[in-house]
């Protein structure tokens, strides 16, 4: 089975691009693929623990935690993007790694398919 690398810069609240990225990850995993999900910029907030689900906003924490615990979703957050937002190591959702942008480029190296969602 293949490996899909997805990178996203879009915010958890205010954009549905992350929602799309997580749904795509889930669909790929259901087909037996593995997914590396890189969250950078405002997208780092996807990987912050303690998110409260409101019906007005995308609430992806449970889904992401479930996919990670099943083993085929690997989420890595941009460390400097997180720190700049006051989101520290202790605030990180269990199972999420923190790294620099070079981790993302390295993941793209071995990806069978690659999707980058830039913008805001």
């Amino acid at each position, binding site marked *: 089975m293949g490996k899909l690398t997805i*990178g996203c*810069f879009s915010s958890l609240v205010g954009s549905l691009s992350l929602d799309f990225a997580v749904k795509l990850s889930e669909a790929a995993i259901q087909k037996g693929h593995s997914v590396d999900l890189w969250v*950078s*910029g*405002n997208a780092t907030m996807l990987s912050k623990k303690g998110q409260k689900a409101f019906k007005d906003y995308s609430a992806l924490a449970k889904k992401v935690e479930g996919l990670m615990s099943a083993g085929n979703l690997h989420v890595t957050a941009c460390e400097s*993007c997180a720190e700049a937002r006051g989101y520290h190591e202790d605030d990180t959702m269990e199972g999420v790694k923190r790294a*620099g*942008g*070079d*981790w*993302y*480029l*390295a*993941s*793209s*190296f071995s*990806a069978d398919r*690659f999707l*980058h969602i*830039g*913008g*805001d």
Partner: protein
Amino acid sequence: MATRKLGFMVSTLPYKIEGSRLAMTHAIASQSVGIYLEDGDMVEPVVCFIGDGVFNCIKNQQSMKHYGITSLAQHIKNSLLLDLTVLICKEDVDKFGLNEDALIMDAEDMGGKTKAKIVPFSEIRRVMESVDHLLFN
């Protein structure tokens, strides 16, 4: 030993959103990607400024003065200093009434030898077709 080419397409305005800054910092991160790869493997970024993205290349940006943050011009100079390929779309430069004199074309003041190039969109399209992965920002 293998090389994967990554095409960073920057079409967003500077400062309005973080997109162009993230594109450049990720492209620059290619310099340290080796710690994650096998010996001899590498990634090679190409940074292309298209559409509104060409405004990232304007000289004399005063972001430190006004926002207290590093300028996108500085990131372009850092990219050139690292010998990354930087292409700027000619049609968009012309469309906005800009010219080479108004844009960051080199990092000579920092000792860099690599220069940015203003090229027709057809050349940028060739880059898009030749890279392994495209990253629109």
